[in-house]
């Protein structure tokens, strides 16, 4: 399906993969947390994608590109921020109080992009990526599981925890006097 000739391959790559560059950059930007590193990760991932384009067999170029962005990000993370806490410590041990038991979350905080942005940025990175892939990219649980190479159950539990944390920080931000 992917042409062998370099130039034909570049043309096909521009038509099939590069239209998803925004998605690649958005994911890289949310994972790294800043423009400069997002630029590096997205560029590295795109060039890696071109290198391996010959082996692309699927019909979902966006999911394929984003899985490469994830890999590039984790390589970058090991090199640049070896101390970053990933999910091992948070996935099972974090016990989150159920925020919805207390408050109606329909409040102005939810429409405030800055507050939402801060709340997402505060999430552990493995929870954060589930939110990006589900809410911003609209992938199904199955697609996310394949893309991130984790079981569907993990996708669901991380997404549920991410949402609880987001609700908690958004409702807490709205009611500063509320004890945590």
């Amino acid at each position: 399906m992917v042409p062998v000739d370099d130039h034909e391959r570049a043309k096909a790559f521009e038509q099939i993969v590069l239209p998803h560059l925004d998605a690649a950059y958005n994911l890289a930007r949310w994972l790294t947390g800043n423009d400069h590193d997002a630029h590096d990760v997205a560029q590295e991932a795109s060039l890696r994608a071109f290198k391996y384009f010959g082996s692309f067999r699927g019909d979902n170029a966006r999911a394929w590109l984003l899985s490469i962005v994830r890999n590039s990000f984790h390589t970058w993370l090991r090199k640049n921020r070896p101390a970053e806490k990933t999910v091992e410590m948070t996935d099972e041990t974090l016990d989150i109080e159920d925020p919805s038991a207390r408050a109606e979350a329909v409040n102005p905080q939810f429409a405030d992009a800055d507050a939402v942005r801060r709340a997402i940025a505060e999430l552990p990175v493995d929870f954060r990526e589930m939110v990006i892939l589900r809410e911003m990219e609209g992938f199904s649980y199955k697609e996310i599981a394949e893309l991130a190479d984790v079981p569907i159950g993990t996708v669901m539990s991380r997404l549920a925890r991410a949402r609880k944390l987001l609700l908690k920080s958004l409702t807490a931000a709205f009611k500063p006097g509320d004890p945590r």
Partner: protein
Amino acid sequence: MNCQQAKPLIGPYADGELEAATILEVEKHIRDCSACALEWRNLKSLKKALTQDALYFTAPTELRRRIEAELPSPRREVHRGLARPVWNWNWLTTMTSGAFAVCLALLLLVVQSRPSAEQQLAQEVVSSHVRSLMGSHVLDVASTDQHTVKPWFNGKVDFSPPVKDLAAAGFPLTGGRLDYLGGRAVAALVFQRNKHIINVFVWPAREADCNPAPRKPLQGYHLIHWSAGGMTFWAISDLNEKELMEFAQDLAANKTVNP
């Protein structure tokens, strides 16, 4: 279904990941239980907050330029073909490889079943969609007003496409465009869902009415096809299939919204 069973299902319910039978049970529980109803409302507001456009980072032009510069470009190496000594083979080699090429072509013809007309059309729909996104030529007429978009097509195509704004359903109309598909001029209506652009190609059809149904995704794009009132419709987007299906059903429903 009690709270303990319902709670872990509220997220998957909001994400459209449950079976029809379970959906009914969850909905019934939410109607009866105020705590779960609150959780459901909070989750809906949260999902809405997370999909606002302002949170989506788009790739800087500089990044796009740098990546394209790293790819082999046909423009920079137009002399490539001339450098190759194609014609100094002896005639026997030429004849043999020619015959071989013909055999191979015949074999491929037999082995590869030809794509159906619909598959070809679906591929064309994808190409048109991608072209519209790449060349920043999504719109010929930019308007969220169906009464501006619909008359714009007068005199440009030999039919009048049904146009309606679905802003209330979360799919605002952004405009229209003239496009070319399956050997004819067609109307392209452009809608948006958050950052996702939806192209709907419309032209008069000689086929029986059929309801919106998803086609096999191509190159990461979801496609939905339907026919109604003598028109054929193809909706395409990188939006997930569930939401695109909602969109198609909204657009297909009550299609007689006319100026």
